[in-house]
């Protein structure tokens, strides 16, 4: 299968992820979309690794996963902490940083 198809699918998934991040109010859903975007990137990595016949791409996917895992851990902890204090998870109500 020519690599472009994989890239197209990855691009579509990525766009959907972006759309989700920009429109959804619930922080968790935003988090999910970010995960989706990360996976789309992983897909392109592996696609290229296969196309170029070099394993580095796949190794890199590992590291992306590690980072994703760390990010989810801390992110969700944050969301929980915010929820415990402000009773809400909706992103546009958490705007303490307004000028």
């Amino acid at each position, binding site marked *: *299968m020519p*690599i*472009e*198809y994989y*890239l*197209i*699918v990855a*691009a*579509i*998934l*990525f*766009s*959907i*992820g*972006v*759309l*989700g991040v*920009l*429109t*959804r*109010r*619930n922080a*968790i*859903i935003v*988090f*999910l*979309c970010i*995960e989706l975007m990360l*996976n789309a990137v992983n*897909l392109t990595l*592996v696609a*290229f*690794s*296969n196309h*170029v*016949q*070099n*394993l*580095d791409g*796949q*190794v890199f996917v*590992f*590291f992306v*996963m*590690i*980072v*994703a*895992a*760390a*990010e*989810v*851990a801390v992110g*969700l*902890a944050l969301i*929980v*902490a915010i929820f*415990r*204090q*402000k009773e809400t*998870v909706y992103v546009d109500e958490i705007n303490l940083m307004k000028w």
Partner: protein
Amino acid sequence: MLETVLFFALALLAVTAAIGMIVHRSPVYSVLMLIITLFSIAGFYVLLNAPFVAAVHMIVYAGAIIVLFLFVVMLLDLRHESDRFTLTKFSRVLAFIAFLVFLGEAILLVKVAFIDGGLDIGLGGQVSQLGDTPSIGKLLFTAYLLPFEIASVLLLVAIIGAVILAKQNLKPSQ
């Protein structure tokens, strides 16, 4: 031939699941949709001769991260969200435009693939180098040893961070 059929099926599945995830009203269903997408991506990995990555992917993502999400969703028992999209109409329109632009790029890639005869950046080496476990393992512990160690430190930090955040006894501010 089987491979292309399988590819299109997985592709279709992944995209619909992704759309379902961002559209669905209840967060639990969104998480489930995401799991389906992850399955399809794992499928792609296998198609791309990367069985080890597919395996690790399923374990780490589907197994750990999504479970964590489910756990948090259950913990905060978020029910139906009334208005799931952001308030300002203005940002929704902008978001949609952003989506279209990204699609534009995808289409562009299609143009490159079909009309200009594909990306010829790669060196068409032999297929033998399969993404099997020993070759990736060897690579991990030789060329990428340093990043590997740093990754472990990163995970440790993340764990500590999460613990501290959770421990704060924050009183709800009225």
